[in-house]
């Protein structure tokens, strides 16, 4: 914007104000702060999240004939039709910057609530800051189970956490065992921040309980220049199932290095993150035909929930991509948060918190495979059923649980 545009803009604003006579009835704007990584290694996640939020804002601020919360009328009815605006802040993947940005959004931008943040490690500091200022934080796409166990009152998560996801994986393994498949040994491969370690701990626990042997458990350094030695260890172990918990960069390097070292895992079941990203499948999808990833979302749900297709089209028009596991949760997260503010009829943190606690949205009114959205006392939605997807022929197909499955799983992926 150059100087002339600013002056013109200011002049027209004054004209508009004059015309409407500064009517006090104009509903105020409700601000929500989104803390995401907008620069650095995972910046694409932040950029995509912004498109998801813009799609959600379109639903909230305009009238749509879609069966989702807040779609029917324009703006928040509970606040006299107030529009919602999202302010995006960049946490750069750094928990300390996440804390600072959350604080800035609350104290300077006066946001009514926060949403975030992809990396679980950053969600820890954001959730604690939100708690201190008594502002609700909706954890849209963080999956670490330790987040809702911090004893926070202003923390909410509508989606599943890694223990629920890992449980779905082991339920799936149990089912395969009953059908006569041999699954004895597992190899864990996880990155060294809270996401990877929590995921591996959950998997270790479930494996012990259900009688699977973990033959190797590799904790690697995130964004390593090389993963050769790590993959060599995976190759030596040659477990029945390789279970990676990796972000996109490491996921791509893992698959490329496996190819270079001639290691074809018998089966791969991934803890989402990088393995739900289009970039990974663009880069190495052909090398891992049949890989399975847990997910909160799948496009073939459109067969059961018509809103999925419509929202996907709206999102795709903005981003050029299909909704994925992350963007679907970000979209839904913002709707749930705005729905809470709408019912609170206030932008006061405590009132919004109370309204969110009373949330009860049936699964049919979401774009997710969830049974419903209802937060427990720790802020976790226990009815967020995860699904398992298999990458076949260039797309994801839901294979688990039976109620959502579109196809039978191909097992093992490399026979």
């Amino acid at each position, binding site marked *: 914007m150059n100087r002339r545009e600013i002056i013109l803009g200011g002049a027209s604003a004054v004209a508009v104000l004059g015309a409407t006579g500064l009517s006090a009835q104009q509903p105020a704007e409700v601000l929500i702060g989104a803390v995401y990584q907008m620069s650095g290694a995972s*910046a*694409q996640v932040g950029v995509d999240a912004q498109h998801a939020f813009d799609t959600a804002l379109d639903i909230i601020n305009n009238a749509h004939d879609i069966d989702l919360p807040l779609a029917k009328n324009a703006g928040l009815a509970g606040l006299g039709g107030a529009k919602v605006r999202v302010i995006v802040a960049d946490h750069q993947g750094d928990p300390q910057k996440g804390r600072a940005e959350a604080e800035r959004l609350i104290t300077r931008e006066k946001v009514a609530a926060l949403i975030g943040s992809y990396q679980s490690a950053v969600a820890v500091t954001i959730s604690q800051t939100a708690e201190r200022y008594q502002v609700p934080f909706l954890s849209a796409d963080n999956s670490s189970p330790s987040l809702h166990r911090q004893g926070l009152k202003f923390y909410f998560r509508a989606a599943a956490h890694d223990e629920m996801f890992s449980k779905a994986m082991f339920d799936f393994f149990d089912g395969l065992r009953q059908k006569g498949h041999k699954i004895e040994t597992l190899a864990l491969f996880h990155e060294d921040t809270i996401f990877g370690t929590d995921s591996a701990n959950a998997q270790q626990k479930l494996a012990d309980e259900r009688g699977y042997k973990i033959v190797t458990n590799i904790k690697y350094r995130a964004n390593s220049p090389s993963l*050769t030695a790590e993959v060599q260890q995976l190759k*030596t172990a040659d477990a029945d199932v390789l279970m990676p918990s990796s972000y996109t*960069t490491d996921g791509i390097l893992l698959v490329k290095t496996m190819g270079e070292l001639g290691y074809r895992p018998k089966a791969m079941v991934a803890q989402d993150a990088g393995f739900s990203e289009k970039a990974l499948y*663009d880069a*190495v999808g052909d090398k891992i035909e049949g890989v399975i990833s847990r997910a909160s979302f799948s496009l073939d749900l459109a067969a059961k929930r018509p809103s999925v297709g419509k929202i996907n089209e709206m999102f795709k028009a903005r981003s050029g991509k299909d909704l994925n596991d992350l963007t679907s949760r970000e979209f839904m997260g913002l709707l749930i948060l705005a729905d809470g503010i709408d019912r609170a009829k206030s932008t006061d943190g405590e009132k919004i918190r109370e309204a969110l606690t009373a949330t009860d949205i049936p699964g049919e009114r979401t774009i997710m495979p969830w049974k419903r959205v209802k937060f427990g006392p720790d802020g976790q939605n226990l009815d967020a059923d995860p699904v398992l997807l298999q990458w076949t022929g260039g797309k994801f197909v839901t294979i688990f649980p039976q109620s959502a499955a579109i196809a039978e799983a191909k097992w093992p992926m490399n026979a």
Partner: protein
Amino acid sequence: MTLQGLAQILASGLLMGLIYALIAAGLSLIFGLMDVVNFAHGEFLMLAMYATFGIVAATALDPVLAAPLVVGAMFVLGAFVYLAVIRHAMRAKANIGMVQVFATFGLGITIRGLAQHLFTPDYRSIQTSWLSGRTLDVAGVFLPLPQLLGGALSCLSFVALYFVIRRTDFGRALEATREDAGAVALVGIDKNRVFALGWGLGAALVGIAGSVMAIFYYIHPDVGAPFALIAYVTVALGGFGSIFGALAAGLLVGLVEAVSATILEPSMKAIGIYAVYLVVVFMRPRGLFGNL
């Protein structure tokens, strides 16, 4: 661990080490020439990778054939950066060291920001090339062809550098300018010209590394950072300004990384590198081959 497994780890470590050395060579060259540490070195690497990706995407040329174009472009970029930025930073009256640090650091951040704006932060990778995904199997030890090419080019580059520095007029001018930038003016050597060529050469070296790495690594605006960090350690370990020290140190870093990822927990493999670095700095503060 089997003997074969051990051989694999050593071979992979050496191949990676040769690439680390190649990345560090340009950094070391520039430092040796004019005592400037280029904190935008990782971004140079990133630009070379994007340039390779761009040429491959636009012309469907194989990345191996695109490499000479990329290296040429990086040479021009390096010389341009010297003339447009560094030359002015060196005119500072006070605190010249800090001015240079901030100039290159700021340049790095600017390049990264521009890359994110222009190329988007999405991850790219080159899908098809003659070499990608192809591996040489030597008695169960897998040697990926792209890394082999990287190693070979790294060795060739060091041989070529040796000849350029020791046997050509340009090399002698480089050495002389580094000894006394004021005195060379008296014998008709243009200091700025030598420095610009030095920067061009340094950037071209990292361009070679970038165009090979684009075949087997993912590409995004921040891809240079972890490699640049290793390059700084490599240069300090080998001795500031010693190009062949960079070769030895690069190999050492590659090996130590591979071995410590195997015997320690892989998340701690960087500790091995820094432990060796600390030991060397304690015993020999100027680095393995430093002559400062």
